[in-house]
Each structure stands twice: as structure tokens, then as C-alpha cells.
């Protein structure tokens, strides 16, 4: 019926993706001089990390405990409950750690980034920097982007450690699996490439979520409503893109 409308959406989508890609390259170029101010980047790592830390730890604990229950129930059917450690570790490392961390990061640190930068835009702070001959891409956008990219794998690692602890809590303390076999099974069968997969995933998600958060804030309408809308877009776009990229990366790792 509305082929034209469909084309319009398609064109708008391609245009937006192009705009984000150009923005990505402009930030990447500014990342080099931005490393000349390590304090700014460290502050942003701390900022993004500290904002999400509590929620990541809580989520990690509960996800790990659920993994322990479900895994125990499933493995018991095959009489191999002592492999629970392996199952939990692989699930967390390769899948749940990076993905859930990214989703929580988008909702907590990502929205904060977007609204912060959007408010700087709305109150002329970015324009004022331009007039003072300071590139806001270098001073505001690049450090926040880098901070997010570095914080993401660290947060995912914390999520994984707490998640394992949660799985162990349920499996060993509640269900009575032997503590020794829980850990030794895990150490025997988790390979280095499982760790690589997790780290690569959370780095990619870190780039995607930070880029979207900074982009939406930087280009938000300079009004209260505009900043609110941009914040919502950050959550939606980051979540969808994270899950999509997760499928692509999983396919690559399993075939490669």
C-alpha cells in the first residue's frame, strides 16, 4: 500500500546510520589527542563504571543463582551435575556476562551520558567551547566514549565473577555438589578462546553503546523534551544493536 512511506523509512534509516558512522570516525580521530589528557579518560571510566557497578553486581548475583538452579536441574537429568561449574562459567563468559552488562550499561551509564551531553548542548556549553576554540568532540565526546569502551569489559568481568559466585552458592551450598569438582571441572574445560569471545564481545558492545549514547546526546534537540527523547532513543537503540551484534559475533566465533 504505502510503498513510498516504506522507502522513506528505509532512506531515513540509511541516512541515520551514515550519520552515526561519520560521527564514529570523527570521534576516533579525536581519540588520539584525547589520550593526551589521561585524567579526563580515567575520570570517565570511573564515572561510567561507578554508575553501573551496584546494579551490575546485583544482576550478576541473581543471574548466577538462577543459572545455578536451572543448570543443576537440567544437568541432574543426565547425571552430570558436577559439570555445573563449566556450564555456568561458559554461559556467563561467552553470553550472559557481555550481553546483560551491555543492556544494564545502556540503561544506567548510557542514559546518564546522553542526558549530560544533551544538557550541555541545551545550555550552550558546547557552543561556548567552540567559541573558545576547544573542539567539544575532543574534550567532551571522545573521553566519554573511551571511558565507556574501557569500562564495559571491566564491568563484564565483575559481572562474571559475581555470577560464578552465585552459581556456586546455589550449586555447592544449597544443592550439595562437591566444591572441588565444581571448580576443577570448570578449570579443565574452559578454554582461552572462551575468554577471548567474552572480551571481544564486551569491547564491541562497549563501542556500540558508548557511541550511541554520546551521539544521541550530542545531536539532541536543545530543549528539555529533546533531551528526554534522546535518552529514550539511547536505551532502545543500544539494546537492539547489542542483541543484533551478539548474534553476529556468536555466529562468527562458532564458525571460526
Amino acid at each position, binding site marked *: 500500500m504505502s510503498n513510498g512511506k516504506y522507502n522513506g523509512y528505509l532512506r531515513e534509516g540509511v541516512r541515520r546510520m551514515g550519520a552515526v558512522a561519520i560521527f564514529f570516525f570523527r570521534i576516533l580521530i579525536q581519540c588520539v589527542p584525547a589520550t593526551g589528557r589521561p585524567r579526563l579518560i580515567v575520570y570517565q571510566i570511573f564515572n561510567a563504571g561507578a554508575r553501573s557497578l551496584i546494579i551490575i553486581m546485583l544482576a550478576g548475583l541473581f543471574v548466577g543463582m538462577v543459572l545455578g538452579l536451572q543448570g543443576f536441574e537440567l544437568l541432574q537429568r543426565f547425571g552430570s551435575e558436577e559439570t555445573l561449574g563449566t556450564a555456568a562459567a561458559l554461559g556467563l563468559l561467552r553470553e550472559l556476562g557481555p550481553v546483560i552488562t551491555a543492556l544494564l550499561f545502556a540503561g544506567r551509564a548510557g542514559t546518564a551520558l546522553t542526558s549530560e551531553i544533551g*544538557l*550541555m548542548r541545551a*545550555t*550552550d*556549553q558546547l*557552543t*561556548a*567551547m*567552540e*567559541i*573558545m*576554540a*576547544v*573542539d567539544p568532540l575532543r*574534550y567532551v565526546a571522545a573521553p566519554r566514549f573511551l571511558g565507556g569502551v574501557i569500562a564495559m569489559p571491566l564491568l563484564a568481568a565483575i559481572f562474571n565473577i559475581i555470577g560464578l559466585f552465585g552459581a556456586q552458592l546455589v550449586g555447592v551450598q544449597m544443592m550439595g555438589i562437591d566444591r572441588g569438582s565444581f571448580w576443577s571441572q570448570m578449570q579443565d574445560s574452559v578454554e582461552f578462546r572462551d575468554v577471548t569471545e567474552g572480551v571481544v564481545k564486551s569491547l564491541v558492545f562497549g563501542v556500540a553503546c558508548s557511541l550511541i549514547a554520546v551521539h544521541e546526546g550530542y545531536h539532541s534537540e536543545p530543549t528539555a523534551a529533546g533531551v528526554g527523547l534522546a535518552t529514550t532513543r539511547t536505551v532502545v537503540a543500544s539494546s537492539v544493536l547489542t542483541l543484533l551484534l551478539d548474534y553476529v559475533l556468536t555466529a562468527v566465533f562458532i564458525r571460526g
Partner: protein
Amino acid sequence: MVVDVRDVHYAIDKRPILSGIDLRVRRGLITAIMGPSGTGKTTLLKLITAQVTADRGQVVVLGRDVAQLKGSEIYALRKRMGMLFQNGALLTDMDVFENVAFPVREHTDLPDPLIRKLVFIKLQAVGLRGAAGLMPGELSGGMARRVALARAIVMDPEILIYDEPFVGLDPISLGVIMRLIKQMNEALGITSIVVSHDVQELSTIAHNSYLLSSGRVAAAGSPQELRKSDSEAVRQFITGSPDGPVPFHYPAPDYNTQLLTADEP
């Protein structure tokens, strides 16, 4: 001639905002740009600071045609200007001291003790040395504007641009800001461009003024000349009458028709 604007046309979404502006700012003088709300005064400042480029015509600042400049050259030019935003536009994640120090830290390698001295001198000039440790959120509107002024002059610019420096100030703060504008100009020889509606205030400090109306220069000259002008637009603006060549109403359909048809969906 520090700023030379020649026959500049500028439109947003095909709606003409400026249509043929001619304006000159001479070195060492205070030039006032006045005009009713929405005539494009802020837009004109954006053209002068190279945030946007004209559709037609030429903007020459400090001898450079801004439309011809590359990104790095625009930044080099801007280092010679300072601008005061209406709300101050202070960076909210640092205190007053760091806000004023910001351009110095970004553009020079001065040792820290020297930066501290410089910042305290500028803060003293605007009377806010004691507020150095406050965050921007803890300042009143007038104080924020004075801090922004200290920040704008910390790099010793040749041109200082003020966008609506008097809006929403009590008489004392207003007097302080006026005196500061005059001082900056007389003591430091900074060429100043002041945008405002405040005819009374401006006429006491400006050497030269332009009255904009509907995207054009309606009148130009010294404040005394403007006051004596027999142009109707000028008279209307100075006496503050809603009737005259300068329309008070944004373009709209006929009032009676709209009221009579208001109950139709």
C-alpha cells in the same frame, strides 16, 4: 575595521532571517546592535563567530573572510575573540576557578602558579575572587554572567561579543555589568559588540549603534543620532510603541476570522 559585514543574506529552512545586512565594527569602539526580538541579532553573532556561513554576501573578521576559512583557521580566529552568552554557558562540571582557567589550560602551557595568578586577576576584575570555589549551579544569574565575562577575557581577546548582557538583571548587577563593559573597552582597548534591546542602557556606553528590523538595518549611527532620527521604525523602537513599521505580531491569519471559526474543529 575589525568586523565588516557586507550585504549578508541568511535563511533557515528557506525562511529569510537576514536579508542584506551591512555593518561595520571599528577597532577600539563599542558597537551596539539593537532590535526587537526575533530579528536575527543572535543569528548575526553566529555569522560573525563563524558558527554558520552566509548564503550570500561576505563576513570579514580581523581581515579574514570567515567563509573561506578551514576548521583550524576558524579556531585560530576564535582565539582572538571572546563571547558572553546570555545564560553564561559555564561548564557545569567544574567550579568557577576552573571555568575561568579552562581556556588558558587548553591553549597554553603556562605553569600552574601563573595560571592561578591570571585567574585571580580576572576574577578580581569582575568582583568574584571570593567565589572561586563555587560551582556554577550555586551562582545567581548575574554572578554567572560575571564569571562568564572573566572567562571571556582571560585570554585577552581583541574582540568581545556580548549577547543580551542585561536581560533579567537587578539594577545593581546591571550597573556593574555596564561598568565592566565600559572598563574592558577603555582600560584594555577591547573592541566590543553588544547585542541588546535596552536602548537606554546602551546609549550611555555605545559609540556606534545599529538598529535591526525584519532582517535589515533600519538605522545606524551614534546613539544621539538615533535618538534624533525621524525614521518611524527608530521612533517606534525607542518609544516602545506596539504600532508602527515594526510588527509586534508574528504573521498570523486574520484575527476576527480565527476567533469566529474557533469552535469549528
